[in-house]
């Protein structure tokens, strides 16, 4: 009897193993003959795009709150038009260049750089239920007034718009309107700034400035009364609108209105064609699919199984499992369905310039020289996941001026202990000049990192790389949010952070330069973890023995006022200064976005602005529609 049971159990186990290890015949995994990208002339409109995303929307589609690149792509591709926008393509294809969208052309700029004048196109109407209402300049002012409201813009990026004259006063309730926004007529918007900044046009490509339709006398139009949930009542201007938008009833008091059917918070998004959208007014969005269905949630591996099986066309925010990436990289029939593009995000180790031993520039330089960047990349998944970073800002923000620049280059990017030790020998913490850091400050250095894979493994590699230099670490792992909080808090006196990363908000160097290295971005601001430009008062207040640290505030201010090619050069010069003189970081990777698409998809485009695939550019094979 016992033997019979054993045999039964063995047979059952073998059956399960056989089913699991059987050939890949559980679903469609091969590519069709059409390939992933076809000439525009071959692509047809039609079909429903079926996609999934793991994480919920950041702020439930409220454009004044949303601070997520994924949601920005929903807006750009599909739901909201802005004065300026992007073509949803890579940098090489002009994807980082601003284009007129609602505006007829790029703005006219006054000689002093303080006044920008936009002229609006005519004939751009809203989606349902405002299909007979055209967009006018006052609608954009309405959006900015909502952005100035601290309650309506919680979690958003209203700090960017503080350069508009009167924006802050309006937000503080000190004025009835934003003085720096004028609408001489329905097709003209004049923006006056408090200081000249070269990035102003980018701000009018952000969804926070997308027009909000009027609704009676309500100051905020259709958004009136929806300070926390406007995303569920969003009125479109793009080629798509939420399913059921025609049933929105803004004549009712806000708390009696029923949210749109096509957006179920935390569960799904359904977008259909906006019947009031005129493609003749828009040269940026091909909008091939007739409808776009997005399911929210699920398991990463399961979602990619669905893509392979043809149940899904794409996963918005997933990480392609290593075995799937391997299969798609090596199988010629699957390679057309694999898409790898730079996502304009940087991964790095940040040093606290006021904490020993990283208050010594030679230590920071030695760290850069010793770091095995190739090993760091391998731990993240290998070549596909990104390009070795030789400097701080991603190349697209500098027009590739520094594409080949790496002042700490080492053979195969594997680190160079000899060169690093030569740098250590110049440090005050190497008391005998033998290339090994022997001061007490070099031992057991507190290091903070992310607790999720592969950061702990990367921390171990860093420790191994730095040991020959005499640098040892006490590594503490935290959840991501807590890690960033600790890196950002000067009073915590964290010498080094192993786990940060940073992506641009829009394709301009200000989103790296100002946000990461200006003294205004030190806590309680964010995210100058290195304390570049920290004042002596701040250092003293937070208990630092160091009284001065390098500053690049002036260089940032100068760069910020430049325009055109001079602006790219100015950011490149700042990058060079940071890498060679300040050395606040050891950058090691410029991230890639890695996607696989189903065999139904015959066109794929990567939107360099948002750093995700352009939803509107997905074309479905005619026989799969």
């Amino acid at each position, binding site marked *: *009897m016992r033997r*019979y*049971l054993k045999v*039964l*159990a063995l047979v059952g186990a073998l059956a*399960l193993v056989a*089913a*699991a290890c*059987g050939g890949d*015949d*559980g*679903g469609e995994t091969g590519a069709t003959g059409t390939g992933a990208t076809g000439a525009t002339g071959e692509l047809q409109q039609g079909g429903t795009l079926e996609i999934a995303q793991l994480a*919920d*929307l*950041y*702020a*439930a589609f409220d454009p004044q709150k949303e*601070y997520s690149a994924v949601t920005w792509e929903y807006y750009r591709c599909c739901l909201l038009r802005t004065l300026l926008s992007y073509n949803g393509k890579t940098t090489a294809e002009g994807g980082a260049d601003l284009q007129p969208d609602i505006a007829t052309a790029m703005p006219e700029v006054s000689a002093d750089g303080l006044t920008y004048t936009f002229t609006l196109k005519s004939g751009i109407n809203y989606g349902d239920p405002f299909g007979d209402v055209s967009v006018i300049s006052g609608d954009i002012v309405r959006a900015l007034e909502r952005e100035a409201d*601290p*309650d309506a813009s*919680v*979690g*958003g*990026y*209203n*700090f960017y718009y503080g350069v508009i004259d009167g924006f802050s006063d309006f937000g503080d309730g000190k004025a009835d309107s934003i003085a720096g926004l004028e609408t001489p007529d329905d097709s003209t918007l004049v923006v006056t700034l408090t200081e000249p900044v070269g990035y102003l046009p980018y701000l009018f490509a952000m969804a926070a400035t997308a027009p909000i339709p009027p609704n009676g006398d309500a100051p905020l139009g259709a958004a009136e009364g929806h300070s*926390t*949930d406007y*995303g569920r009542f969003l009125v479109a201007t793009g080629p798509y609108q939420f399913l059921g938008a025609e049933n929105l009833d803004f004549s009712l008091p806000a708390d009696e209105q029923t949210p749109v059917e096509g957006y179920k*918070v*935390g*569960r*799904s998004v*359904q977008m259909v064609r906006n019947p009031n959208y005129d493609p003749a007014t828009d040269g940026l969005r091909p909008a091939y699919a007739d409808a776009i*269905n997005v*399911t929210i*949630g*699920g*398991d990463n*591996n*399961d979602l990619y*199984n*669905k893509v392979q*099986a043809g*149940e899904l066309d794409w996963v918005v925010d997933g990480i392609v499992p290593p075995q799937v990436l391997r299969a798609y990289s090596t199988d010629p029939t699957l390679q057309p369905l694999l898409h790898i593009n730079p996502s304009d995000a940087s991964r790095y180790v940040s040093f606290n310039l006021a904490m020993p031993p990283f208050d010594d520039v030679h230590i920071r330089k030695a760290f850069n020289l010793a770091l095995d960047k190739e090993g760091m990349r391998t731990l993240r998944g290998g070549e596909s996941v990104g390009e070795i970073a030789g400097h701080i800002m991603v190349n697209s923000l500098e027009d590739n001026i520094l594409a080949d620049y790496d002042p700490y280059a080492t053979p195969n990017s594997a680190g160079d202990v000899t060169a690093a030790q030569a740098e250590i020998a110049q440090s005050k913490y190497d008391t005998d000049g033998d290339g090994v850091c022997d001061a007490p400050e070099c031992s057991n250095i507190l290091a903070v990192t992310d607790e999720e894979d592969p950061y702990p493994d990367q921390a171990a590699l860093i420790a191994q790389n730095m040991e020959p230099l005499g640098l040892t670490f006490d590594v503490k792992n935290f*959840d991501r*949010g*807590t890690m*960033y*909080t600790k890196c950002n808090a000067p009073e915590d006196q964290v010498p080094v952070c192993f786990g940060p990363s940073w992506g641009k*908000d829009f394709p301009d160097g200000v989103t790296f330069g100002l*946000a990461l290295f200006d003294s205004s*971005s030190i806590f*309680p*601001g*964010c*995210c100058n973890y290195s304390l570049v430009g920290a004042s002596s008062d701040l250092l003293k207040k937070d208990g630092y023995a160091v009284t001065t640290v390098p500053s690049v505030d002036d260089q940032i201010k100068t760069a910020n006022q430049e325009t055109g090619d001079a602006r790219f050069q100015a950011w490149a010069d700042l990058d060079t200064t940071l890498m060679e003189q300040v050395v606040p970081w050891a950058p090691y990777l410029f991230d890639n976005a890695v996607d696989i698409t189903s065999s139904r998809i015959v066109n794929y485009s990567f939107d360099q602005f948002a750093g995700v695939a352009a939803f509107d550019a997905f074309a479905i094979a005619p026989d799969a529609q």
Partner: protein
Amino acid sequence: MGRYLIRRTLFMILVLFIVSVITFIIFVKLPASDPARRAVGRSTSPENVEAARHAFGLDQPLYVQYGRFAKGLIPWPGLFLNEDVYYSYANFVPVKEEIFSRLPVTITLAVGAATLWLLIGIPIGIISAVRRGSIWDRAAMVFALIGVSAPVFWLAYLFLYVFWFKLGWAPPSGIPIGTSVGEAVFQGVFILPWIVLSMTFAAFYARMVRGNLIETMGEDYIRTARAKGLSEKRVIYRHGLRAALTPVVTMFGLDLAVLLGGAFITETVFNLPGVGQYAVRSIFANDFPSVMGVTLFGAFFIALANLVVDVAYAFLDPRVRYT
């Protein structure tokens, strides 16, 4: 019985109060990040953080903050999880709206799995008890061992991979967009989740029924029934099983109530938009009102189930009377 019910209802409110205090303390004491800072995103000014803190009422003293949530403890329409306090910090959707919109999925999952585990577990337990020592008994106990030992998430991933991805016998995870819960049931979306969720319980109930029935069948009154000439089938099902199932009823009520609070792992792995999935997301987002709301909701169901089961016990067992 009336006085007993009133006492138990008041006790239920006390339980909810204790649960809410413990939950609140956990959130204010654990070194998780500041919800206001999380809400305002990565680049922020102190003014934005303070605006968020004020909007969420986080600038109030702790006892005032708790007091705002305490009103939502009372299980009464209009008061329970009131919308002016219990809304998500992440997306501002009222917690009650989320829970009740997700409840049909959770109920479907829980009731279906419960039905399955009763249909599987009780017969296996009976057969195992009646044919104690036989191959059926041993097979049943192997099943019970596997069912109790195999983690739910492991079973879920294994079943999805084998029965959907490889064999194509079951539909993929998730409810298709535009499909109602009822339609999803008929499309078979819940089959794998039911099986996965019921396996652990079926195994446990099989063991419990087996043990109870073996013990009951050794009682004097069972010997008497046999001596009176009753058929073995009648002895087992009419006399033995009734006593053996009484504790099962108790457990069933509690288990079902726990599931109605959300089968966290099953809903997450199978991407079923139920209360459990909502709870998991809220926990990872450190979304305090949502977590508090789901916790109180689950506690309410369990407390209610306890009450229902205890009252049912009085009807099942004539020896039990409440005053």
